């Protein structure tokens, strides 16, 4: 990886070449908050400039100012040396500035070509769509990105990674000068990332200036030539990627360095808290057997679509098993609803915190107590004081940053939202805690806090099941690792004695152990 960094850095213009885009002293105020304070940032043609910062540091706001979605209160935007005022997103786009979003904004029931040219479909004979030209031009763009799918494919049939390519293809319609990637890998698996990297490098070679926002250090060091850091809405310096290291950047970002300790995993565990025996849900997964002991963290690793979340949902009573049994604390459990699962002491921090984890329009406190209302009410009536105590307890324990409990969770940053979801479940004092992608889209600071929290919970006796697509996460927290591929458990590893190669093989169906053998048939 270091070799790649060096060669890329040498490609980049080392001398002070005029930037293609400069943001000068941008200030953006929201009622009562200064989101950006005199922030300056520039991008050169043909470079990847990474923008880093904790959640809430102002990265997204800065990019929204650039894309014309927010009007800055002060400062200038210079594109190729000329001052520009973008008062709406369309003008920014027309000038060649394109934002590729975290959340995908495609129309699933339309073809790839229609999505690429959405809003600017080529026309003929007055107002009819010129389908031939549409597909020809779309195919040209897809070829440029070296995409393997056709412009006539339905977007709903594509994988998440391919959908993201459609988003990028859409950006190329406007012959962009600057492309902003806002956490593009948040929903990609390790497998799918190289494809994205290739595209970014292709764009870079074509002279496009690229702003790359991500929380993942490995990506940033792999891709970028320069790194700029924002902290609490202020510009905190720019470094050449080749001259720095992860530790230094982390310090710039959060003002301290992080320690990722692999060593502190406990070794003695209690009895089985959860045991699955041949659990099957037709069409989802089959014959899944494993156990989680008290005080143990079991990682479940696999690609998106391998059936991991479905297993979690079945344990949580949301899916009806078509075969096999779930044993809780040694007893066979019949879980017909999430309500029963919660009553039995199971907690699930779901994969998608916005859709499944939180009521975004509700305040922090009410979200926190939602899964355990009985404990903060008397004869059905809520006890606000008790609720406040619960909220304060977890807010302090997890250092959740909010202006107060009345704040709607929709206004919090991703890391803080996730902590609210975790707090909600800790409040129910579960015996088994399942976390599905607990740190997706969360900055490194919050991420390591959540990892530390998970370990601490296991130490105090919780049985924890962590589902993740990130290998460092799985390796970092798990005592044992279950690998899933295509609806089956393909292997089980000791968390301290597993090679990355073996894990990758196991989740792509190339690994054969006694735990299960991969075959060519998909799950029924």
């Amino acid at each position: 990886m270091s070799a790649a960094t060096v060669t890329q850095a040498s490609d980049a213009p080392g001398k002070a070449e005029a930037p293609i885009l400069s943001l000068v002293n941008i200030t953006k105020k929201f009622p009562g908050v200064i989101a950006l304070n005199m922030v300056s940032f520039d991008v050169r043609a043909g470079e990847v400039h990474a923008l880093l910062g904790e959640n809430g540091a102002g990265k997204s706001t800065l990019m929204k100012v650039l894309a014309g979605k927010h009007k800055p209160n002060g400062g200038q935007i210079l594109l190729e040396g000329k001052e520009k005022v973008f008062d709406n997103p369309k003008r920014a786009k027309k000038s060649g500035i394109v934002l590729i979003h975290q959340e995908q904004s495609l129309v699933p029931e339309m073809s790839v070509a229609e999505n690429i040219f959405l809003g600017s479909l080529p026309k003929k004979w007055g107002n009819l769509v010129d389908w031939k030209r549409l597909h020809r031009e779309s195919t040209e763009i897809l070829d440029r990105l070296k995409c393997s799918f056709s412009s006539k494919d339905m977007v709903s049939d594509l994988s998440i990674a391919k959908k993201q390519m459609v988003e990028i293809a859409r950006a190329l319609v406007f012959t962009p000068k600057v492309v902003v990637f806002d956490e593009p890998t948040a929903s990609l698996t390790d497998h799918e990332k190289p494809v994205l990297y290739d595209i970014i490098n292709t764009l870079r070679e074509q002279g496009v200036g690229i702003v790359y926002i991500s929380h993942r250090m490995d990506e940033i060091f792999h891709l970028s030539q320069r790194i700029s850091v924002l902290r609490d809405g202020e510009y905190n310096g720019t470094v050449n990627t080749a001259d720095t290291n992860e530790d230094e950047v982390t310090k710039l970002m959060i003002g301290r360095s992080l320690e990722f300790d692999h060593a502190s995993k406990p070794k003695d565990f209690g009895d089985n808290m959860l045991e699955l025996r041949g659990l099957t849900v037709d069409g989802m997964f089959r014959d899944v057997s494993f156990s989680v002991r008290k005080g143990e963290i079991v990682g479940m690793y696999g690609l998106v679509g391998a059936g991991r979340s479905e297993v979690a949902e079945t344990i949580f009573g949301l899916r009806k098993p078509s075969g096999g049994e779930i044993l809780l604390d040694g007893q066979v459990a019949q879980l017909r609803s999430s309500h029963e699962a919660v009553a039995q002491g199971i907690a699930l921090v779901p994969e998608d915190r916005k859709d499944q984890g939180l009521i975004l329009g509700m305040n922090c406190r009410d979200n926190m107590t939602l899964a355990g209302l009985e404990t903060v009410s008397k004869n059905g009536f809520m006890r606000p004081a008790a609720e406040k105590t619960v909220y304060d307890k977890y807010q302090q324990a997890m250092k959740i940053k909010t202006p107060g409990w009345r704040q709607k969770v929709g206004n919090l940053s991703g890391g803080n939202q996730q902590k609210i979801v975790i707090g909600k479940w800790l409040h129910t004092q579960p015996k088994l805690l399942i976390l599905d992608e607990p740190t997706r889209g969360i900055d490194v600071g919050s991420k390591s806090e959540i990892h530390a929290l998970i370990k601490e919970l296991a130490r105090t006796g919780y049985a924890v099941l962590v589902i993740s697509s990130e290998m460092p996460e799985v390796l970092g927290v798990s005592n044992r690792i279950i690998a899933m591929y295509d609806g089956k458990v393909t292997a089980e590893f000791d968390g301290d004695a597993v090679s990355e190669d073996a894990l990758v093989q196991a989740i792509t169906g190339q690994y054969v152990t006694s735990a299960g053998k991969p075959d060519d048939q998909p799950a029924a």
Partner: protein
Amino acid sequence: MASAEHTKQGFMLSKKHKAGLLNFLSAQGILVFFLICMFAFSLTSEQFLSQSNIMTVVRQASIIGIIAVGVTVVIIGGNLDLSVGSMLSFSTVLVVDLHDKIGPVGAILVMFALTLMLGALNGLLVGFMRLNSLIVTLAMLSAIQGLVLIYSGGQNVDIANQSDTWFGVFGQGYLLGIAVPIIIFSLLAIIVQVVMSFTGYGRRIFAIGGNPVAAVYSGIRKNWCVFSTYMISAFCVACAALVLGARVMGSQNNVGQGYELLVLAGIILGGTSLLGGAGSIWKTVIGVLILGFIQNGLLLMGYPYYTQWLVTWVIIILAVWLDLANKRKRLLTRHS
């Protein structure tokens, strides 16, 4: 570090205060509008602000209000109930018809039981079978009207010896100088508001309306909760039928026709979002009263009664538009 933390705290404080003031004003917007309407009407008619006129308006509005209290709960839970209009016809016809056949007590009991069964059917279809509430209750609106016509054979019903029964007290009686319909309306509004604001049940309904998926992922029994909102709605309809039947001491077989829209109008005017997860009974009460006073004001100004339909809905569309514009503005000024 410490000073940075300090300034941050400062920002947050002032943000909170500003947001509080904004929220307060936008929450009270409907009340301001209400007062302006009252003032405008009082200029055009001397009787408008007289005590007897106000009491008349509130008494007339209480039937719509009683139903709206229940429907608000359904809407906060993220569903709709359009069946209340014909349900009101059904219950009123039933209680009036049975009054002479099995006596007032039996009539009231049977009417409540059967109305609740209709609510249970709504709840079953929407809550447990997860059918779309708009379609289910629209179908029920039509089906129940059919049921009423079958039951009554197309005849209107009435109570023969109106002076021999205490039944009329629910519609015409007074307690401590206050009309009984107003008392029933107030009591229901207060009880349901307390339930929605201060109980775990209320919290769950708000959660389901706000995000049904997340509610289920929090271990809330969504099916039962949705079911219960339709039971509350039906209970309120039964109460309204009691008032309506007792006031007229008779019933046309389509007496509730159009009530579902008036109820909805009151709720929207009050500012409860049809998307669910937000709203309050207070808002609905105010919305229903505005509706009543507008209609009354127009009548006093000498316009024929049907102008109120036009004016009411123009005002509603204006209110919704203003609300939306307000939300957009807030969305734009708030960073995500």
